[in-house]
């Protein structure tokens, strides 16, 4: 009987450290961040005051602590794509927004990114997209990075598509991309090549205008 009681007590003592860890995590998330004033943000971005207000309200609703970490970011993005798994693409997006590379997005980063995407010049947008594709931030897009991106996009579609997804479809996309973008055929795409190629593509230019009136 005593042995039984002994084993029971031993187990509880093992559980103690993990519980402390959870308490620590809770404390960390209590840290709050406040963005700079409305006027400064208005000056820095191309949004009006009302638009910033709307954006901040939505931001704060999902992230009361004022910063978005990658988990929350993926969770939010997943709500929009319930069919597939957008976590990979969200990861790349997160890295693109997180210009300071410290693992969290503050409201300023968020708004700056959005400002570029929605209100920026064509060149700004293309640069931003280039940085999105350049996963290792070395200034070049190679085939592996592009394959990653395309695969991430296809992951968002999920399993049930018509026609059914076959294994080599991403590869075809990547090949077509490089065909179009890689002017000097050196196997990588630089920023200039990318911008030039995109500006030549009419479809893309038209698509870029699509999201102008999103706000």
């Amino acid at each position, binding site marked *: 009987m005593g042995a039984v009681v002994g084993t029971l007590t031993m187990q509880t003592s093992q559980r103690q450290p993990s519980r402390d860890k959870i308490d620590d995590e809770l404390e960390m998330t209590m840290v709050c961040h406040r963005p700079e004033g409305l006027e400064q943000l208005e000056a820095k971005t191309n949004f009006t005051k009302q638009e910033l207000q709307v954006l901040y309200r939505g931001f704060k609703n999902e992230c009361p602590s004022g910063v978005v970490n990658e988990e929350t970011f993926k969770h939010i993005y997943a709500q929009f794509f319930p069919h597939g798994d957008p976590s990979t693409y969200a990861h790349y997006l997160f890295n693109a927004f997180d210009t300071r590379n410290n693992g969290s997005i503050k409201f300023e980063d968020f708004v700056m990114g959005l400002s570029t995407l929605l209100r920026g010049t064509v060149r700004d947008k293309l640069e931003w*997209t280039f940085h999105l594709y350049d996963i290792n931030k070395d200034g070049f897009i190679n085939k592996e990075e592009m394959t990653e991106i395309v695969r991430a*996009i296809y992951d968002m579609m999920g399993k049930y598509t018509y026609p059914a997804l076959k294994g080599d479809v991403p590869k075809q996309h990547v090949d077509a991309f490089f065909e179009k973008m890689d002017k000097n055929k050196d196997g990588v795409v630089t920023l200039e090549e990318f911008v030039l190629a995109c500006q030549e593509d009419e479809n893309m230019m038209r698509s870029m205008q699509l999201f102008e009136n999103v*706000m």
Partner: protein
Amino acid sequence: MAAGVAAWLPFARAAAIGWMPVASAPMPPPPRDKRRGQDGLIILNVSGTRFQTWRNTLERYPDTLLGSTERDFFFHEETNEYFFDRDPDIFRHILNFYRTGKLHYPRHECISAYDEELAFFGIIPEIIGDCCYEEYKDRRRENVERIQDDEENDNNKDMVLPDMSFRETMWRAFENPHTSTMALVFYYVTGFFIAVSVMANVVETVPCGSGPNRAKEVSCGERYVLAFFCLDTACVMIFTVEYLLRLIAAPSRYKFVKSVMSIIDVVAIMPYYIGLVMTDNEDVSGAFVTLRVFRVFRIFKFSRHSAGLRILGYTLKSCASELGFLLFSLTMAIIIFATVMFYAEKGSSASKFTSIPAAFWYTIVTMTTLGYGDMVPKTIIGKVVGSVCSLSGVLVIALPVPVIVSNFSRIYHQSQRAEKRRAQKKTRLARIHAAKSGGANAYLQYKRNGMLASKQTGQALVCKSNPTFETQHHHLLHCLEKTTNHEFVDEQTYETSCMEVSLAKPSMSRSSSLSSSPHGLSSCCTRRNKRKSFNVPNSYMADGRRSSIQELSTIQIRERPMSNSRSCLNAKFEETVHLNSEEQSYITAAVISMPTPPVTTPEGGDSASSPNFLQSNIVRVSAL
């Protein structure tokens, strides 16, 4: 799902820029925003409490009241806000749903009130968040059970169909002894005989003093063999008859045979028959004696008579897993301690612990702290083990017992609540009906005053100091009377008219109109008299007058009587009014409906009884 994060939609759409260079086909054109205006604040005034929110927040869920154009129906122009005459406390939760996308259920709110609010605002309760879902489901289930309970009792007690077969009546009598006197008598008789049988079993083993021819004491059973045999036979006869009757009456014989009570019945009466079959056979008489043990199972037949016993049985059944665990842990402990004890006491001389199974007895007696003392350890180790055994015994037994006790307590309280509800239901219903009849009575009062006034002065009806609502209500009832050419009267009048009808013409033929709607009438009158079966319509009335009136709530509008009877009707009208004015002390109001036999009216038109019969053409609603 995305509505909760609707504010992030612009971000998601902007992030789609990453797809552009990869896309091989052009993108579809974007949707055009209908309202490009500013996102405005909406004021929601719920019974005086003002809530404000952004319009976009509400429009996240366009299939609810607040999110769709349905809210325009509640727009109040003067104050430029949306006014809802609902509960503001519950509305808080509903508005939070729009804001956060999660619906919570407040524990202190009544489940029906909450459900009503949700239904009003067009929100389905299935989206309640996980945090509150369990609680919500539990409360909902309790509520449904309560309603079902009430309905069941209603059906059981009140509804008797005249065409219930004899078999069904018998089954109902068995299951619920309060339905008829016969059933009650049967119930008490069987209870008495169970008690007698058990007492006889007990008494027949008591030593009764030495018999005349014997030296030693004999038990009463052996002394008065014949008497006990007769008693036993009588009891078994009764039990057999009861079992056979139940078997015949059971709606599903297979289910009945499988049920616990029927098995107990069989086990109770089997020993007797087996004993009858195999008397005078010495070899099996030993087994026969053992069979007599089963006679004690007759005591379980009492569980039909005692609700507490049934609850106990049900508790044990529902705690089967706890009981099983108790048994298992006890067995483990017994084996462990018995083994240790045996090896500890092996050395000592003349030890009673001859084997491990022998030590089981010691362990059980010690663990349950009985301590008979017939087996005692002598060595020191034995005594140490014995003390540990007794200490742990207390623990092991004490652990599962509270679970069983709490289970029993819960089930017992549930049944108590059900009983209380049933008892209170009568008073509750009485209150409701008093309120109902108060309303109906008010109309009759108004009518008497108004009618009399109009008759005397020939003017339009003058309303006294009634509030507007009542006046309009009375006017409505009056219109109904005029429409149907029937009148509202109260119970007394109806009964007197019934009496007159039954006295007047016993040979009234059945009417076609009756045959066209038998069910309405049968349900109307049969409720009042359960025992008799009805063939003649008039006998309904005759019998109905005599038996106790129970609850009716049907207004039956019969076809208009023929034109030549209308004059009679008007004549009757006067009589009715006179009757009413005489009997002023009615508590209940009744509106009577009877069939009009158009065929017989011309025949009976010239006889004196026809006005009496046509008097019966009154619409009746009785509320007790």
